[in-house]
């Protein structure tokens, strides 16, 4: 169990997702920059919430750094997006969504960035079964063999595609 008082960066603050947007607008006007943003699954940390977006802020004139923990609320866990204030947060929020499953409300293009769009689950979550989830990629058209006498369109009877994208045609009458 972790007590927040023992938590030890130079400067860190927790805030609920509902307050983040208003604070972010103020911070942006004061000249703070987002240098990093990532998701955190706090399942085993003893907090009373599960998901956070952890934002690293930098103020170049003051030469200060500041860590802000934005607590995600609701199901799916949601945090307001700040891409319109700091365009650099675009990829970072997509990465946190893809790997940690934190949703960013108001993000213009919240799609997976590292994994294929068809992927199920969010690998950096603590309950993601490492080694238990089969890794399968959806076969792409160029993977298919189009030989004479073979029908390669998927969904037809007798045609299956295995996990490597190889087309298997069952012999007629076999």
């Amino acid at each position, binding site marked *: 169990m*972790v007590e927040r008082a023992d938590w030890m960066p130079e400067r860190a603050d927790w805030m609920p997702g509902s307050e983040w947007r208003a604070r972010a607008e103020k911070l942006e006007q004061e000249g703070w920059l987002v240098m990093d943003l990532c998701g955190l699954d706090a399942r085993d940390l003893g907090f009373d919430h599960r998901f956070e977006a952890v934002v690293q802020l930098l103020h170049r004139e003051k*030469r200060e750094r500041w860590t802000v923990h934005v607590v995600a609320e609701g199901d799916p866990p949601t945090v307001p997006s700040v891409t319109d204030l700091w365009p650099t947060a675009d*990829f970072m929020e997509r990465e946190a969504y893809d790997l940690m499953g934190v949703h960013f409300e108001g993000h213009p293009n919240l799609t997976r960035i590292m994994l294929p769009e068809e992927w199920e689950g969010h*690998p950096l979550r603590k309950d993601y079964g490492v080694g238990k989830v089969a890794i399968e990629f*959806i*076969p792409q*058209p160029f993977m298919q063999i189009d030989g004479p006498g073979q029908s390669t369109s998927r969904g037809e009877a007798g045609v299956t595609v295995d996990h490597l994208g190889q087309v298997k045609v069952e012999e007629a009458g076999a």
Partner: protein
Amino acid sequence: MSVASDRIVEGFESTGHGAFVEDFDESAGSMTINMGPVHPATHGVLRLLLTLNGETVTACRPIIGYLHTGIEKECEDQNWRGAVTAVTRMDYLAQFFNEQVYSLAVERLLGIEIPERARYIRTMIAEADRLTSHLVWFGTQALDMGAMSGMFYGFREREMITDFFEMVTGLRMNNGYIIPGGVWEDLPEGWEEAVATILDVMPRRLDEYEDLLDENPIFLERTKGVGAISADDAVALGATGPILRATGVDWDIRRDEPYDAYADMSFEVPTESAGDVYARYRVRMAEMRESLKIVAQSADKMPAGDHRNMDPKLTPPPRSEMNRSMEAVIHHFKLMTQGYIVPAGEVYTKVEGPRGELGCYAVSNGGTSPYRLHIRDSSFVNIQSLPVMVEGGLIADLIASIASIDPVLGGIDR
């Protein structure tokens, strides 16, 4: 079958142009094509979705993830010492910086100091690594601009420095040399001569490079005023390193937030104001000379003493001691089977890598392996500047801009 693959199949069959044409709007005369992920000028497996009007790029969207290996997740299954082996493989051209930023994070969580000699060794080897990284950039930038000899020159000098790495660490790449608590091994006998050779050869070679390119009309034509980005845009998009300094923003973590032995070094932070490909070229060439200065200073001032923190709770005891002391055997056994415990907490550390700010956010819950490890890779953030640089320009200038960002896909995708 998903919507995404449906769309690809349809596009593939209807246009008949092949899989790389995504969309063709005949009335507007615009075409959306894929550049990469296996295009030689994208420096790895970067895929760019380009909308073209003739030869003009009207929209550019970088698509990444083709090299995603889940290193952050993998580190959660390693102990704190073992994760060094994983992080060094992220940005494979700046391996020592990855190890350094991770080690700084773990040391801060442990609340330990490292010996003076370790700090100097780290500084020296990291600056030599910056040289190797910039030499690869030099080679690829020159190659992409049509000067193939630049590639051979850059790699020739890089080989000399990687030989030095091999001498010190045993490996040319993915060294795993900088570890929490110091460095893995002390510098070997004869390291002074190897450093002296680098310091002797490199300045002359850098002059040669500049002779090769500085007055080359083709190179100047293809870099001056190409791929320009303003300081405001670069700051808003989070660009760091040579891209930011080429727009005139004077920011270098080595000087402004010093770590390891940088506070004892004297060096300049080169900046330019134009923000184009040529300015980034000038900044990187000047940075290489500054790196040589830092290598020379840290070699000159190299203090004597331990090369790593000798706390038996952190560092396995020497072999000789294990034959005599039961205490040492216990420490060795605990460290080898379980690893050391890092107090609960979180930390964000940052170093100035060859491509800009390299950050490490580490969380411990009081266990023997990282609870969460996140690396802020500089290429991952810098690549977001590419659309601003290339939109409205020619497709040939796009090649120059990609090379000048110097992206490393191993770092972007992690």
